[in-house]
């Protein structure tokens, strides 16, 4: 599975296959476990069952029970023991069955993992990954986008891919990173998104955003599943002659300030699109960076489009009203360019 050049970015000379977002995550785990015996996977039902979403399917067959560990229902122990194992030189990848349950180990992550290097120089190279996001009728406890819970805790890194290519490359980068990385995978994308992914080894470096669509009239800054919402909106806007640039953050901590500021400087209008609830979401941090560092470029208010300020509702009509939609983005973008 692995092998070939270690130099990203891949070129078209590489062997490419169109695979799903989910398969890309699985490949990254296979590759990294094959290449580095220090990498192991732990979590609930990740072994024989292959995980609630089958992300780790086949892993235990290949690498055995010692490296693909089914744990008790104990998120604190999963992350805590991963920290300990990482101290001993291992590279644990923890699965949180639904990312919502990361709330149960919030302390272990923010207080133990995040501060360890700063306090005593003891790095914690762990990855904590799990399915986030709504749109699948998951209800209040299986739909969260938790990035803003962790945004005020230096010492943690956070990523969320929007493509299969990034899903693989970011996970590889996260596993090789020497700091704790929270890797959020959007469950809506698992099987809906497919794209070309090289067989060869590559990484998508942490901290780098990607322009998904060039434009000059406004910038939509987003990530995860909302990238696709933004791209659909951009297509509709294009028909009206509005050229939206779509910036996919990919990394949420650290943020790619250069890419953000460069795009704002170019378009002077910003729409922040994120799937978490509006108030207290990552859009705040983005707005603050822009309002502080790109103020003179701004020709319009910074607009946030996000989910409603409520728990995530279960019924499809409620969830549809709750989530950001292409229509909301198009409408917002029109207002922005008309400002």
């Amino acid at each position, binding site marked *: 599975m692995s092998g070939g050049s270690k130099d990203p970015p891949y070129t078209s000379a590489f062997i490419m296959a169109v695979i799903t977002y989910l398969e890309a995550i699985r490949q990254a785990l296979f590759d990294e476990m094959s290449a580095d015996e220090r990498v192991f996977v732990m979590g*609930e*039902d990740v*072994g*024989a*069952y292959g995980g*609630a979403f089958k992300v780790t399917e086949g892993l235990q067959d290949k690498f055995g029970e010692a490296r693909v560990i*089914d*744990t*008790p*229902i*104990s*998120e*604190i*122990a999963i992350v805590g023991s991963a920290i300990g194992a990482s101290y001993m030189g291992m590279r644990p990848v923890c699965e949180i069955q*639904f990312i*919502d*349950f990361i*709330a*149960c180990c919030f302390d272990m992550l923010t207080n133990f993992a995040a501060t360890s290097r700063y306090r005593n120089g003891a790095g914690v190279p762990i990855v904590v990954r799990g399915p986030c996001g709504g749109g699948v*009728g*998951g*209800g*209040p*406890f*299986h739909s969260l986008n938790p990035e803003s819970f962790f945004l005020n805790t230096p010492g943690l890194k956070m990523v969320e891919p929007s493509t299969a290519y990034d899903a693989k490359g970011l996970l590889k980068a996260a596993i090789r990173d020497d700091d704790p990385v929270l890797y959020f995978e959007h469950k809506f994308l698992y099987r809906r998104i497919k794209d070309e992914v090289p067989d060869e080894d590559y990484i998508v470096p942490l901290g780098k955003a990607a322009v998904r669509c060039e434009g000059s009239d406004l910038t939509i800054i987003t990530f995860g599943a909302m990238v696709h919402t933004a791209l659909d909106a951009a297509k509709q806007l294009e028909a009206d002659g509005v050229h939206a640039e779509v910036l996919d953050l990919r990394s949420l901590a650290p943020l790619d300030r250069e890419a953000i500021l460069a795009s704002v400087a170019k378009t002077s209008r910003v729409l922040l699109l994120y799937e978490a609830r509006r108030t207290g979401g990552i859009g705040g941090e983005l707005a603050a960076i822009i309002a502080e560092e790109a103020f003179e470029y701004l020709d319009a208010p910074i607009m946030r489009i996000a989910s*409603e*300020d*409520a*728990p995530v*509702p*279960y*019924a*499809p*009509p*409620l969830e*549809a*009203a*709750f989530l950001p939609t292409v229509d909301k983005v198009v409408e917002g973008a029109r207002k922005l360019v008309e400002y």
Partner: protein
Amino acid sequence: MTGKSTLNADEWRVADPDRPSDLLAREQLLEMYYFTRLAREVEERLVILFRQSKVIGGLYRSLGQEGESVATAYALQRRDAVLPLIRNMGALMTMGVRPIEIFRQYMAKGTSNSRGRDLNIHIVHMPAPDTHEPVIVGPISMLGDSIPVAAGIAMGARMRNNPRVAMAWIGDGATSTGAFHEGMNFAAVQKIPLVVVAEDNKYAYSTPISQQMAIKRIDERAESYGIAHELVDGNDMLAVYDVAKRMVESARAGHGPQLIGIDTMRMQGHAQHDDARYVPKTLLDEWTAKDPLRRFRQVLIERSIAGDRELDYIDKMAKDYAAREADLAVDEPMPDPATVTRGVYAGDDYAVPRIELVKSPFARVSAGLKTRPTQEEVS
């Protein structure tokens, strides 16, 4: 006093104090059978709705566990508090939740207790303090969280001079959570009237209990807290009732929390999407032979409590009832999207449909009774 007749309910009342089930009247035994059958039939209907894509999200069966769920809840008084899990359909039926409430929830109807906002049996019933109704607090998905909340309910009720025993169910897997530990220990220290039903159904999702805990008996989870515990054959409904009843009354008498360990088996996958390939066929076969409903039926027949004719009648009654309720719920409206942000905070509440509670066909109409009503006939 030790003699125990299997012939009729009245004689049967001369009983072993360790076997409170000896005191159950015929109507009560039939009622337990009815609730168990009803739980199964409600779930069978849910399967149909699930296949019709009318259930939003996952469907979790309690096949094989309906008996323990009913028998534990049956040990409660009507005013007690229950904190069931997804697999405690039997407890909900026993406490009198009208089946339509379940269908509404699973189909995310606007008429449901959560108005389509929350899943499956995540329902809540807060009766006025002076009514003769149970407190019902469904779980949130985060396993274990119900335990400290259950402790708080029983503690709070005691503080309000309106005491209730709280009964909370928990899976083998969920006993590994920090929330379980903190709640159990807190309840023990505060001598809270909490009865925890710990269900060893052999798996937590795909994880066998051997990878969940290094003890053999789930009831030993109570040892670290100084909490009284006992393990029972979970598919023997009267045995379950006996232990549960003693524990409920012990908790009520001020002896602090109790834990009943249930030895049972989850007879299907974790949810409908899970084919449970990881479960050995032999294990399933072994437990199929121990189906709690079939076993209980046999007891009723052996003890001449009822014959096939009466029991078939109950079966049909339950099945028809479940079907009717499902049909009614199917046509109800989905929630209005305009309400999506309503009721996050107080002052903006919009009407929450109260859970409708119903009496079983066996219930004696007598509110003041401490034990279950006993006089109505079934056939």
